[in-house]
């Protein structure tokens, strides 16, 4: 195995991320708190990751490296773009806040480290590599959640996240080891050979543990308990970023493990996933209905959305597989736009649902943007979230399996179930009077730019969905 020039090209997004991690940290140490420069570098770094991945995608680059342990295909590159682009918005949102804490370089380094872990993750074809990359993405995120020293909830959320995260990692690792034990190899193509026909009890246990570990990371019920506390405590930019980028990468690698590593065992894992999907939708939405704090509401909403995406996994059967893969790709992109926007708006308005009251009268443009995010999260056309859900329904309808029909039915029911809390925010913004004497938080231009850009993208998604689905069709997976 020689390190050729091609290997470096294949590793371009990872190398760029590594370079900027080091650069931002060093500039922070020697740059005498020049926040503007650090933020600029971090923003440039995340754009460069997305840009290099986009460049590779445009040239049609693909191949496998390091003994088939690292693979570059358009599927992986697609998720690298999502990760890089969401990191860009997270950096913008963090700019002013992290400058005020005096620890901007450290915080931004953490964001870029999560980026590095996530872009590595989506290219892994070796289960131990998967584990390492997940940890590389997760460990900095514990620190990100606990980073806001001015709020006790931040430390509390970080602690809960860390403890459950460590358990999740060990469960995941245990599952991987069992699968390795059965297959004699951790490489997905070797695993595929052993995961066929009837699964041995050990293999089944390994599979269940693997899925449980992933469910923790994806905050899928019943493994979601860390999510509301972590997202409530975390700095807004951290909650926005962590609910989107590493999660998209984790969904991507789970898809790769299922389709490349155990396609013959699809009957088993689609059943497990179908159960988890339905549970996550109901738990997420029913708990979100009760929240008055917008952070916690969005945290539970992210549990529900993980359920919606898992519903596409449940549809990975027979003829429906291409559509289900498209559904995951489209949903994660749509979700990245609308969910980041919704989280970041908290910095501009406030975390109490009441602080949104009368926003339509005081700041119409912002109210309109938040309205777009909420409508998109509900799944109303023509906004981005609708296409995610529509593709999941499409994929489910193609399977011809009653179990999947039940999952799709649950998705439809849950979509309606989620209307009261998303539209509760819209009602507060448009129908209520502003609460007198409560000034809105002073806002940084960068956050406003991020929110408005995301709102426009959420609206214009309708024009990109055609090309996106074509891209997904040629995703390289399968």
């Amino acid at each position, binding site marked *: 195995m020689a390190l050729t020039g091609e290997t470096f090209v294949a590793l371009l997004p990872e190398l760029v991320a590594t370079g900027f991690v080091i650069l931002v940290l060093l500039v922070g140490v020697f740059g005498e708190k020049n926040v503007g420069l650090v933020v600029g570098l971090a923003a440039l770094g995340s754009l460069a990751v997305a840009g290099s991945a986009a460049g590779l995608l445009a040239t049609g680059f693909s191949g496998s490296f390091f003994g088939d342990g690292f693979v570059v295909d358009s599927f992986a590159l697609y998720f690298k773009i999502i990760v890089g682009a969401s990191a860009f918005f997270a950096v913008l949102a963090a700019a002013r806040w992290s400058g005020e804490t005096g620890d901007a370089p450290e915080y931004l380094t953490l964001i870029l480290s999560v980026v590095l872990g996530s872009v590595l993750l989506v290219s892994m074809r070796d289960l131990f590599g998967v584990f390492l990359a997940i940890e590389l993405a997760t460990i900095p995120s514990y620190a990100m959640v606990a980073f806001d020293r001015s709020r006790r909830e931040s430390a509390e959320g970080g602690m809960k996240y860390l403890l459950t995260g460590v358990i999740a990692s060990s469960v995941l690792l245990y599952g991987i080891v069992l699968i390795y034990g059965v297959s004699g190899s951790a490489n997905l193509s070797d695993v595929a050979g052993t995961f066929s026909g009837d699964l041995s009890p050990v293999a089944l246990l390994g599979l269940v543990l693997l899925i449980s570990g992933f469910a923790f990371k994806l905050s899928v019920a019943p493994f979601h308990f860390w999510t509301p506390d972590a997202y409530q405590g975390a700095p807004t930019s951290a909650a926005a970023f962590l609910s989107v980028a590493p999660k998209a990468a984790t969904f991507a690698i789970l898809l790769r493990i299922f389709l490349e590593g155990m396609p013959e065992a699809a009957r088993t894992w689609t059943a497990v996933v179908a159960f988890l999907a339905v549970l996550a939708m109901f738990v997420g939405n029913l708990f979100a209905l009760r929240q008055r704090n917008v952070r916690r509401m969005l945290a539970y909403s992210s549990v529900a959305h993980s359920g919606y995406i898992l519903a596409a996994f449940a549809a990975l059967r027979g003829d429906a597989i291409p559509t289900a893969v*498209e559904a995951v790709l489209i949903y994660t992109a749509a979700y990245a736009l609308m969910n980041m926007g919704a989280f970041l708006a908290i910095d501009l308005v406030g975390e109490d649902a009441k602080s949104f009251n009368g926003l*339509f*009268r005081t700041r*119409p443009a912002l109210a309109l943007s938040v*309205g777009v995010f909420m*409508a998109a999260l509900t*799944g*109303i*056309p*023509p906004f981005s979230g*609708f296409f995610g859900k*529509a593709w999941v*329904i*499409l994929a489910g*309808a*193609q399977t011809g399996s009653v179990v999947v029909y039940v999952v*799709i039915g649950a998705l*439809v029911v849950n*979509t*309606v179930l989620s*209307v*009261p809390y998303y*539209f509760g925010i*819209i*009602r507060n913004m*448009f*129908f209520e009077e502003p609460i007198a004497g409560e000034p809105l938080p002073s806002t940084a231009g960068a956050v406003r730019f991020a929110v408005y850009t995301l709102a426009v993208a959420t609206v214009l998604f309708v024009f990109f*969905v*055609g090309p996106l*689905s*074509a891209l997904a*069709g040629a995703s390289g997976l399968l």
Partner: protein
Amino acid sequence: MITTVTIFIPLLGAILMLLLPDDERLMRYSALGVAAVPFLLVTYVYFAYGDDLGAAALTQDFTWIESLNVGYRVGLDGLGFGMFFLAALLTLLAIVASWDVRENLKQYYAILFVAEVGMLGVFAAQDLILFYIFFEITLIPMYLLVGIWGDENRRQAAIKFFIYTFLGSTVMLAGFLAFGIIAGGYSMDSLSAGGGLSRTAQIAVAAPILFGLLVKVPAVPLHSWLLDVYVSSPTSTNVVLSGVLPKLGTYGIIRIAIPLLPDGVQPFLPYLAVLGVVNILYGAFVAFLQPDLKALVAYSSISSLGYILLGAASGNAVGLNGAVFQQVAHGLYSALLFILVGVIAARTGTRRIAELGGLATRMPWAGGLLALGALAAMGLPGLAIFVSEFMSVMGGYTTFPVQGVLGALGIIFSAMYLLYMLARVIFGPIERPAYEEATDAGPVEMAAVVPLAVLLLVLGIFPALLVSIQRPAVEAVLSTIGGS
């Protein structure tokens, strides 16, 4: 091209409204100007292309999502044209009638224009997914119009409306998606007469689609969102809410459910006719009991929508033509009555029938036009409703005699409650001295209602003006279901 331009001009208008300075006169006149453009374009289409709308004309077709064969496909045909025209007309008149909206005027117009995009688009869409998207585009604007500018009860009314109709349309979308997957595309053209689906598959797909469309109408057991919303809304919102939105449902039945899934709809047709009759009779009975003039008009509207369902269910040329015609006629008369209720409430300070009386002397014009609208609603010959209710009942009777007879009874009931209302509101003594001073409708109010009254008369005397346009398209529908 002209179709696309007509649909999306209001969107530009919405953006324009938000950019205007806060000057009330300027905003009102600009909104009128914007709303006039689609109306003039549709009028032009009527005179220039009215004769060849048998199949979709003035079409545009872009592939949008290639892998699913979803396209931006629009065009006008005889089934949709009447409502396309009415949507443009009623938005224009809603803006004339928006005198009771005083706060946040520019946002009001902007939101109304976004709703107009959806309303126009639905009646021009030639692709199922596009139809659904336009269908839903009306949802949030209507929610906001009711929720921001409605009366005290507006919040509950708005969310109830939203949840009901969103549930319906989501179920409908599931039906559309399943239909397209099995048939391999979403173009209405290619899906004609089942798109190759077996009878069982058609029934399975037709059920959720019909459910979603019937919630939108609303058909009676699914109607509980309607009263609160209609009563809470400002007058100008009522105009589009009652004049156009129910037809999203009925048009869907006539344009999508019946011709695209003929075998699947077949077993449901008798029940659809029953639902129509239930709407007619239930609406009429409940209208009789209403103490509030606006609630009476709302139930009268439900009753009158029943004829569309009955005519559509008949599956013969007379009934179907009646149903398509009734969509327009219903829009004209319900908009007329809602505006007049708004005028009367504003001038007298009350909508309670018991407190009104003797309007004929105080407000001869408004009272007279109310009488005209009520006479139209009860199907007086010479006014548009007569033509379509008669045709719907005749068509319904041919196919389903029992339902047809019961539907005809509805005409008698509607005469009863409407005449009883007129007796109390228009005639009789002036009950309250408070509005002895009430003045008659002014020029602006007259400008909002007179066009509707004139159209009711013209279409009542010359129904061929509209029937000639819709007939070829109706025949095309009949050919898919094997009727005559």
